């Protein structure tokens, strides 16, 4: 009972002592020693030196000792592969033991030892165990297949284990079925296109039967697997739903959430006029509410999911507002999530209650929570018109408390209320002005300045107020500076006589004394406008502003769909697709909701047809992406804001976001020019505007290419749908020995994007940005900018599949986005890739013939001369040419940036458009990519 003594060990000569004890004759002493070893291992001490001694203890009939030795083996086998072999015999013997517990233990442990030599020996015992008479052994063996697949996928396929695993889905024991399903699902994830799970009505039926009988965990595996199935029609969909709904009463929250996932997904296929559809909707609410009486951590998971469900199907929980009221003792993470859902559920029917609650929360202790509550009051006002007046008076009450951050937050939201209901609540301006001095946060200062500028004609001392801000102009943040500039221009247009001096002052501050390009540009535009055509200036600056949307922080519809398919999982907690936080290929597959099928009579009507596919919500709300996104911080990507050489404060620490749009500065300028609705302008219309700007900042993009290397056309890498409005397309080029990533960034969202930064995942050739992403100006809505990013090849290396795959993260003020693209390997071909003839000959002979691969290039109509010239442009050098029987044989060499040489022999026959190419390289993996380059270069 006092195992804790093993944790207190003497420091000196410890290993030596342990060694002696491990080799002791006394069984008890041996066991004691192994326990000490395990304790040391736990606290992180390296006890690998004891490997042979511990393994010697394995030959024992004491099960406890055996388990301890196994535990040690799992930890250290990898570091001592040769010695781990010593253990194999015992494993194989144990797999034949009459006791099923020992057989299972052996096969379970063996799968955890990731040593190639051992896995070879594992196959036979595993095959036997998969067919063992005892279900306990079979269920363990099923998981072992997944383990083996993780170590050596090819081996598993070659040995036919996958088929055996599939057979286990029909096993008589539910737990075996559940584990087989779990193992198959995991293996299928790394083979997205293999039809491994082969879900069909028959196998689904088996799973649904097993669902009733297996453990809570098994039910989760099965439900998660079911969620990947797409029923053929609405009838099948309904029958599966009917068999899944009983799970909603399970005590295990994870079973409930996984069942909800299946139902939410399959519901998509049901016609909305079906009675069952309504019944199902009603059945979903109570279990979701029950999740809120679970432990706080689970509540958090549930709330994050409910947040998604409420966005997808608000009708489910619309009457359940009260359960989301915050309790005083809720942990802060639960409080914040509840608040979010309360706002989403706020409607005319319940607004009075919601407001009373929010007011209560605004007096709490936690600053974040209070701020969010105050903001929520503002959002209620914007969402429910009838409540606006009450919201405003509540906010005024809060301003009276004089609590600094409450006041600031209130002013920020009141500005939005003014936007939504112009000329309605301006009576409160006087109260706001009283608090001018206490505002120290840029966002609040900017909001206040906007209000003063917007209503300058009603504020007697507007000029004095603005002038007071002007004194410390250069110490203000950019956001405030821009706002102040616009506000003073507005003031001037409204009261030209008294404020001439002021406007001149601000214009000169912005244009002459500032080194911030945004501020200067805006200043110049105003200046010219005012000096050339004051009437036009008035039309532009005081133009009517577009409406702001009611809902904020909505998740973009395609992402929402994907997240619904991931209910219960981490993705639903982060509100990010799995590809955003899972490394490698696993789970990167995008899931989609099924489309509604057209069987059944009801579906013919146009209404339902509209909603089909689930991708178009009834009233597509426009999206203002959230700013301080939780995940950006969580992911800890370390994407630093671009550091520019000059002291330009504009790019760092600029937090403009939606603010600029609301400010009605530059955007209302553009809006006036293009018809007051910048958000809906098609991108093409915008191209000349953005293009001009882009050119200015395109560093080296337009430099002529003397060599004429092949540059693939630009393709879209990141569609705007997936990146909250940011579209990225691009290509790669090699210019004057420098690899360039040429990007075109287009802002298709409504807010300004700033703070761009880029980072690559480790890749096969160590590509990494050689400098920061040079986007110096904020990217306005519908603006396009071309950037060229020089790359180096000295970054961290990791082999990718395909080899030329590059995973990229781009950050802006809104979020972090991920995409992957493939670069032509030709950009890695260096200029000094011409080999000496003798060296070529020797190398060609030296590389084993196994490494040679042959390809055909078809439909190429160049003669050998032209081909050679063309290839030279991409640093593929012809070393020698030989003509044999009307066939030109070209011998070429290529050197990659990491020093790998590729030798090539190209056969060109006059009149035959098909070339044959043989590639030889010490790293044959690159051949395929090199061949693709040949093809691309020759054909373009």
């Amino acid at each position, binding site marked *: 009972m006092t195992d804790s003594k093993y944790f207190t060990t003497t420091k000196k000569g410890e290993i030596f002592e342990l060694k002696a004890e491990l080799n002791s004759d006394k069984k008890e002493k041996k066991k004691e020693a192994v326990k000490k070893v395990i304790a040391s291992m736990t606290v992180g001490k390296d006890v690998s030196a004891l490997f042979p001694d511990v393994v010697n203890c394995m030959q024992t009939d004491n099960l406890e000792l055996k388990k301890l030795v196994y535990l040690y083996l799992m930890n250290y086998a990898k570091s001592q592969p040769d010695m781990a072999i010593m253990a194999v015999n015992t494993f194989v013997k144990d797999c034949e033991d009459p006791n099923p517990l020992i057989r299972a233990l052996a096969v379970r442990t063996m799968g955890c030892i990731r040593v190639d030599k051992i896995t070879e020996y594992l196959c036979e015992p595993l095959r036997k165990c998969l067919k063992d008479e005892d279900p306990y052994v079979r269920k363990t063996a099923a998981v072992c297949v997944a383990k083996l697949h993780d170590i050596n996928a090819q081996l598993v396929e070659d040995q036919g284990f996958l088929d055996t695993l599939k057979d286990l889905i029909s096993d008589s024991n539910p737990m075996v079925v559940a584990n087989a399903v779990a193992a198959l699902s995991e293996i299928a994830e790394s083979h997205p296109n293999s039809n491994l799970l082969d879900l069909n009505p028959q196998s689904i039926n088996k799973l649904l039967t097993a669902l009733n009988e297996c453990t*809570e*965990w098994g039910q989760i595996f099965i439900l998660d697997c079911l969620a990947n199935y797409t029923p053929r029609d609405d009838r099948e969909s309904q029958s599966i739903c009917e068999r899944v709904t009983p799970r909603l009463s399970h005590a295990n929250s994870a079973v409930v959430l*996984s069942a909800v996932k299946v139902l939410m997904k399959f519901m998509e296929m049901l016609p909305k006029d079906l009675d069952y559809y309504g019944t199902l909707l009603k059945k979903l609410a*109570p279990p979701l509410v*029950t999740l809120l009486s679970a432990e*706080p*951590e689970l509540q958090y998971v549930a709330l994050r999911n409910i947040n998604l469900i409420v966005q997808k199907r608000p009708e489910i929980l619309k009457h359940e507002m009260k359960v989301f009221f915050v309790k005083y*003792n809720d942990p802060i993470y639960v409080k914040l999530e509840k608040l979010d859902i309360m706002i989403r559920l706020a409607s005319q029917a319940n607004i009075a209650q919601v407001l009373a609650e929010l007011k209560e929360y605004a007096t709490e202790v936690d600053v974040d929570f209070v701020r969010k509550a105050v903001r929520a009051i503002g959002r209620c006002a914007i969402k429910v018109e009838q409540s606006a007046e009450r919201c405003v008076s509540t906010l005024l009450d809060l301003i009276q408390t004089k609590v600094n951050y409450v006041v600031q937050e209130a002013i920020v939201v009141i500005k939005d209320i003014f936007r939504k209901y112009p000329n309605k609540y301006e009576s409160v301006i006087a109260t706001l002005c009283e608090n001018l001095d206490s505002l120290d946060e840029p966002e609040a200062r900017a909001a206040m300045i906007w209000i003063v500028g917007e209503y300058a004609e009603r504020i007697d001392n507007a000029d004095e107020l603005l002038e007071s801000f002007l004194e410390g102009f250069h110490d203000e943040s950019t956001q405030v500076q821009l706002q102040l500039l616009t506000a003073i221009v507005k003031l001037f247009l409204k009261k030209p006589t008294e404020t001439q001096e002021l406007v001149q002052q601000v214009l000169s501050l912005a244009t002459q004394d500032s080194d911030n390009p945004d501020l200067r540009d805006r200043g110049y535009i105003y200046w010219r406008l005012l000096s050339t055509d004051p009437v036009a200036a008035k039309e532009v600056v005081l133009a009517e502003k577009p409406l702001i949307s009611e809902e904020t922080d909505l998740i973009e519809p395609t992402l929402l769909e994907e997240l619904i398919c991931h209910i219960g999982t981490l*993705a639903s907690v982060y509100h990010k697709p*799995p590809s955003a936080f899972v490394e490698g290929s696993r789970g990167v597959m995008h899931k989609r909701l099924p489309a509604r099928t057209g069987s059944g009579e009801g579906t013919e009507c146009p209404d339902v047809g509209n909603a089909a596919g689930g991708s178009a919500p009834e009233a597509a709300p426009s999206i203002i992406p959230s700013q301080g996104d939780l995940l950006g911080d969580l992911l800890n990507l370390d994407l630093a804001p671009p550091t520019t050489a000059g002291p330009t404060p504009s790019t760092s620490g600029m937090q403009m976001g939606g603010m600029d749009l609301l400010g009605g500065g530059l955007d209302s300028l553009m809006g006036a020019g293009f018809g007051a609705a910048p958000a809906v302008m098609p991108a093409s219309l915008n191209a000349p505007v953005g293009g001009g700007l882009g050119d200015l900042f395109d560093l080296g993009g337009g430099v002529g290419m003397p060599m004429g290397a092949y540059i693939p056309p630009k393709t879209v890498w990141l569609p705007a749908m997936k990146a909250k409005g940011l579209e990225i397309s691009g290509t790669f080029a090699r210019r004057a020995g420098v690899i360039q990533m040429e990007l075109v960034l287009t802002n298709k969202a409504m807010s300004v994007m700033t703070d761009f930064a880029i980072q690559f995942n480790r890749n096969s050739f160590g590509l990494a940005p050689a400098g920061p992403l040079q986007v110096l100006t904020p990217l306005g809505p519908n603006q396009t900018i071309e950037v060229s990013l020089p790359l180096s090849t000295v970054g961290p290396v990791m082999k990718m599949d395909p080899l030329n795959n590059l995973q990229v993260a781009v950050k802006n003020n809104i979020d972090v986005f991920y995409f992957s693209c493939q670069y032509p390997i030709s950009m890695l071909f260096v200029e000094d890739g011409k080999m000496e003839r003798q060296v070529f000959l020797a190398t060609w002979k030296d590389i084993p013939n196994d490494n040679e691969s042959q390809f055909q290039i078809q439909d190429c109509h160049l003669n050998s001369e032209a081909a050679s010239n063309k290839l030279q442009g991409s640093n593929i050098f012809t070393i020698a040419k030989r003509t044999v029987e009307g066939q030109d044989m070209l011998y070429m060499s290529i050197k990659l940036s990491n020093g790998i040489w590729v030798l090539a022999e190209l056969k060109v026959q006059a009149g035959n458009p098909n070339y044959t190419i043989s590639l030889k390289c010490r790293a044959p993996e690159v051949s395929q990519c090199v061949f693709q380059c040949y093809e691309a270069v020759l054909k373009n």
Partner: protein
Amino acid sequence: MIGGLFIYNHKGEVLISRVYRDDIGRNAVDAFRVNVIHARQQVRSPVTNIARTSFFHVKRSNIWLAVVTKQNVNAAMVFEFLYKMCDVMASYFGKISEENIKNNFVLIYELLDEILDFGYPQNSETGSLKTFITQQGIKGQHQTKEEQSQITSQVTGQIGWRREGIKYRRNELFLDVLESVNLLMSPQGQVLSAHVSGRVVMKSYLSGMPECKFGMNDKIIIDKAGKGGVTNEAGKSTSGKQSIAIDDCTFNQCVRLSKFDSERSISFIPPDGEYELMRYRTTKDIILPFRVIPLVREVGRTKLEVKVVIKSNFKPSLLAQKIEVRIPTPLNTSGVQVICMKGKAKYKASENAIVWKIKRMAGMKESQISAEIELLPTNDKKKWARPPISMNFEVPFAPSGLKVRYLKVFESKLNYSDHDVIKWVRYIGRSGIYETRC
């Protein structure tokens, strides 16, 4: 799936570390310690992502349990698993404390090997685990073949929670209906939200593999029975007592859910010993056992007068126990004078509250406390947040109105009938979060 599981003490020292997946390195252990346990600020989320690795954690007293993964795991499952792991450990060695964990680390490793395989949770029912993993080392060496296969069939079987061949001389059943009643009331006495979350906890000492059926005054069943020519039994119970509307309920895995879904009947083969049969939630017609009427008056800037009246609202013959009223006081309180009619009241400076305790109180009674709170003058601009007045109590009835109608036991193979089983039923209503704003 789950990549690894670590247990730390409050200082962040690792007590247990078990890695299941190759993508989790030793540095994950340190990452969690540095970023979560040693983080200065309060933890803002139970899920943390550090360098593309996700950590889930729960805390039990000052022990941290963390699950780590690099994949898109089922987050709800991970937390359910962690709770289950705590239950399993607690049932093996009691309280989860540093000392107990160190004392049982070999056992914990054995358990972790058994209930998580490659990060997939396996059977975690203590009932069946205890048949082959014990604190005195593992059984298994000296078992007969029959015993071994009985163990494995139980661990993997349909009725994984109960072993065969259980025998009791006296077949006995204890049924506890435990409810916690939650209330949030405005200062004016308006109910902002109220709900009961209840649990039916059962201790069964029954022989063989008994089939049980549990019935309560569920509105849906009683209404159904009422319509369809009242059966004798249902008729009896409807005549006297009210039925209740259950918003939602969840069941132990032994209950046949499909049967509940189709017939709303609760049938099951019970685990042996103590377990939670069901949980439920009601919001309608709740009996609120106590009403709190607060009165707070600010007298100038340095004094507060507080008066709180509590009224008990149940049958006079019943007695409430362990009553405690907690009245928060401002942070700048310098002194408090309290007068109460009943029980004892004390100002606890460390908790910023006046705690008023009453041992017992009968139904339909009323009691009162008044206090004068002296405040230190401050120039803190921020107003006192006035946390709600909270209450604790225990009453011998179910505030939801739930009544057990029957619990029938059938065991066809053994020679005992429903009448031979001794059954005990007890109702306990406790306060959950029972708050009145002031």
